[in-house]
């Protein structure tokens, strides 16, 4: 055991912190007097930050992989018997390590900002680098002090307890936290540009254009992180659901909501010059919510099914949150007013009107989630009694808001800017509406009785249908090449439509799996059977498997129709050698039509108590999430982001004509407008 690795890791964090401090000073100086700083100095500083973060993370991983128990983090969160995958993921399965990951991602985004700064004359860019530096000082500072994983133990233990059992039982631990962190940390970039623009008193769309890329990267990864997290929770926790409105989940949902609002309101500013001040508010709020979310989940103020740590990092995060909110909004109050855009929407029945409604709904949604999450804490802190705010409250608020959002999503993208006449909307929506009402009627006739599910299917079909119609109407010719060229030229708009399709799929999955679920609880002696969802379910046997650091007990439940075996569900119980807590894992049988979910309630050698659930269309939620992420990547994939920034479609009347000489059918606009309008 040497002290090399802990020393290297800590030195890396210290290097990162000092370089961040230098970057903050240099960046601010460059913003004030561009000639005083050379770009090479900024570049060297950013490289030092990256090297520091890589050194920290590398030392942490190396110590985990070499069982170096002289490092405090390894001694607390690792054991010799931990399998390789969970040894690697161990670097972020506890608080200190996850802050190290945070600094690494932050260093990456700082590098991304630097690449957009061609020289120090770019005062918006150098100011943004300075803000990245300030945020870096805080997080690297946490690693060197309150969240220091690199403390050297004078008397290292021979072996450690390993990570939290829940975090070494599923491969998702390798994907979910890094995705979430890329999302969370990515919102630092829009924040940095917003503060820089405020410092410069520079309004306009330049800061929006330059943050589009980072913002979309962050949004896409946060979306992926949320969906993967929901799936993980569904697949592992065994309470039969995927979303519990738990504080940790809410913490990730709130910035997602405000960031989604920002993606839309940024389009309004770029296209119509409105909402400039509002965009600053959304960006400040998104960043502040990521810090607040981290505070809520990383301190002991809330108890949650996923909060894995208690620590002194909490107060530091709270102070930082207060500074961000106080500083950011003070600056905004001093500078924002003169930057507020003067133009106003002419009519709410227009694209920008729909964007405004969308922003109102998403902000309200974020506010409700925030309120429900912090309310119990505030009431208790103010000396009141203990209160609970749970699923019924959130559902009651979220359901009408989600319906309204689906409605806006169904009509908004198909309205032109300025003013959408009823006749035009009717032309664009009549066929989708016809298809959707046919679908709703058919489902009811076939026996579907959940009002929520039918309503969501109606709205989702309208939205998806309108999107397809818009695509067909915008394509200048019937050839596949023309279609491809269209979706490639307007990546922002069609990426957005793809994401909307994902939202529609997810909404259908949420409504149908929730509204038409069946459940049963059953206690079965060995060899006995019960019936569920048309199957005969027999408790066949239990099996024990021994793995290096754990004992896994599988229960075998055989699903039959008649005498044919359809499926063998194996919910299992894992007992870790050095953890008192056993982890139960449900068995999920996924099919495109429905999932059969079997969760263990109790397992004794000769009797089993299981909760059985059938969720129709559950797997559509994961598909919908994947489609949303694909939409985000499609919008990102353009080669020249500056030209396509914040793009909605060119309103069809102004669409650039097809350059080729081939005969084109009548343009989209002519077909869209009713003759007698």
């Amino acid at each position, binding site marked *: 055991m040497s002290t090399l690795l802990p020393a290297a890791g800590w030195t890396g964090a210290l290097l990162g912190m000092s370089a961040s401090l230098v970057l903050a000073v240099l960046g601010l100086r460059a913003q004030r007097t561009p000639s005083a700083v050379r770009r090479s100095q900024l570049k060297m500083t950013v490289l030092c930050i990256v090297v520091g973060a890589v050194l920290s993370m590398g030392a942490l991983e190396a110590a985990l992989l070499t069982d170096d128990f002289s490092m405090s983090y390894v001694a607390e969160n690792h054991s010799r018997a931990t399998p390789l995958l969970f040894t690697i993921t161990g670097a972020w399965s506890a608080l200190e390590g996850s802050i190290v990951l945070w600094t690494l991602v932050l260093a990456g985004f700082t590098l991304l900002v630097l690449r957009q700064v061609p020289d120090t004359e770019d005062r918006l860019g150098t100011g943004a680098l300075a803000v990245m530096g300030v945020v870096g000082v805080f997080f690297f500072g946490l690693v060197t002090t309150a969240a220091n994983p690199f403390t050297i133990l004078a008397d290292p233990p021979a072996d450690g307890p390993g990570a939290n059992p829940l975090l070494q039982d599923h491969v998702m631990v390798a994907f979910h936290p890094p995705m979430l962190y890329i999302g969370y940390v990515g919102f630092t970039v829009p924040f940095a540009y917003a503060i820089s623009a405020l410092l410069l008193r520079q309004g306009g769309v330049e800061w929006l254009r330059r943050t589009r890329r980072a913002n979309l990267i962050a949004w896409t990864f946060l979306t992926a992180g949320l969906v993967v997290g929901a799936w993980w929770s569904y697949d592992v926790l065994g309470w039969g659901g995927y979303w519990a409105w738990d*504080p940790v989940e809410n913490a990730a949902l709130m910035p997602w909501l405000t960031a989604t609002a920002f993606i839309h309101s940024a389009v309004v500013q770029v296209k119509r010059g409105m909402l400039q001040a509002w965009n600053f508010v959304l960006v400040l709020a998104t960043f502040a919510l990521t810090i607040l979310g981290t505070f809520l989940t990383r301190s002991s103020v809330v108890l949650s099914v996923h909060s894995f740590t208690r620590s002194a990092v909490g107060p530091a995060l709270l102070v930082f949150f207060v500074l961000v909110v106080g500083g950011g909004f003070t600056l905004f109050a001093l500078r924002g007013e003169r930057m507020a855009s003067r133009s106003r929407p002419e009519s709410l029945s227009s694209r920008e009107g729909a964007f405004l409604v969308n922003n109102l709904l998403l902000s309200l949604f974020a506010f409700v989630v925030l309120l429900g999450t912090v309310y119990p804490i505030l*009431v208790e802190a103010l000396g009141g009694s203990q209160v609970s705010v749970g699923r019924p409250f959130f559902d009651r608020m979220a359901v009408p808001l989600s319906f309204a959002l689906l409605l806006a999503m169904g009509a908004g993208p198909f309205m032109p800017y300025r003013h959408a006449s009823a006749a035009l909307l009717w032309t664009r929506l009549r066929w989708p509406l016809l298809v959707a009402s046919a679908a709703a009627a058919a489902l009811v006739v076939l026996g579907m009785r959940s009002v929520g599910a039918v309503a969501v299917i109606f709205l989702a079909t309208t939205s998806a249908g309108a999107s397809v119609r818009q695509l067909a109407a915008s394509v200048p010719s019937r050839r596949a090449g023309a279609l491809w060229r269209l979706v490639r030229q307007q990546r922002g708009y069609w990426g957005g439509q793809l994401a909307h399709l994902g939202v529609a799929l997810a909404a259908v999955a949420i409504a149908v799996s929730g509204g038409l679920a069946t459940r049963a609880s059953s206690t079965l002696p060995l060899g006995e059977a019960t019936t569920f969802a048309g199957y005969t379910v027999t408790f066949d046997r239990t099996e024990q498997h021994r793995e290096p650091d754990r004992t896994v007990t599988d229960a075998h439940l055989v699903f039959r129709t008649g005498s044919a075996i359809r499926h063998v569900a194996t919910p299992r119980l894992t007992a870790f050698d050095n953890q008192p807590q056993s982890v139960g894992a449900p068995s999920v049988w996924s099919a495109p039509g429905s999932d059969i979910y079997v969760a263990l309630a109790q397992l004794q050698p000769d009797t089993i108590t299981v909760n059985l659930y059938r969720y129709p269309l559950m797997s559509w939620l994961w598909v919908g999430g994947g489609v949303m992420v694909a939409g985000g990547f499609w919008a990102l994939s353009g080669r020249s982001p500056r030209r396509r920034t914040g793009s909605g479609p060119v309103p069809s009347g102004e669409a650039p004509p097809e350059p080729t000489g081939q005969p084109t059918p009548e343009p989209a606009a002519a077909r869209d407008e009713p003759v007698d309008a």
Partner: protein
Amino acid sequence: MRRRLGNIAVAAAILALLTVALLGLDRGRPSGDRAYALERQLRCPVCTSVSIAESTSGTATAMRAGVEEQIAAGRSDQQIVDYFRARYGDWVLLDPPARGTTLLLWALPVGALVLGVAVLALRRTARPDHGAQVDETDRAQIAAALARLRADDVADQP
């Protein structure tokens, strides 16, 4: 004329289909699982932020049995909820009541909605009419500039 007839036909079809759906939904409302609905409103006292419907702990199992017994005894939902509230306090209600310490929780979202709608409505009516202040020479200049821009745009195309 044919176009108008077509529109009317589509509108009528949509209305007819929606009527079919609504009538069907109205006829066959399922009665619902009362015990499950109640269980989802009660917080499991020994778990972290899940209801007794979702928990597999012994306490939650006992509480579920309690709910089912009381339903069998013919007590109303309100009586059953009150029974658990008397034993565990307001804390046990995952659905906080709109009174006392949790009144604000319900009032604030409503207030925020009203505020938001008001801002949206006011922003729209406060719009100054810039269009009226543009005189003919300005209009001609703008039109010329737009024409130039459009020409450039076309020339830019590959």
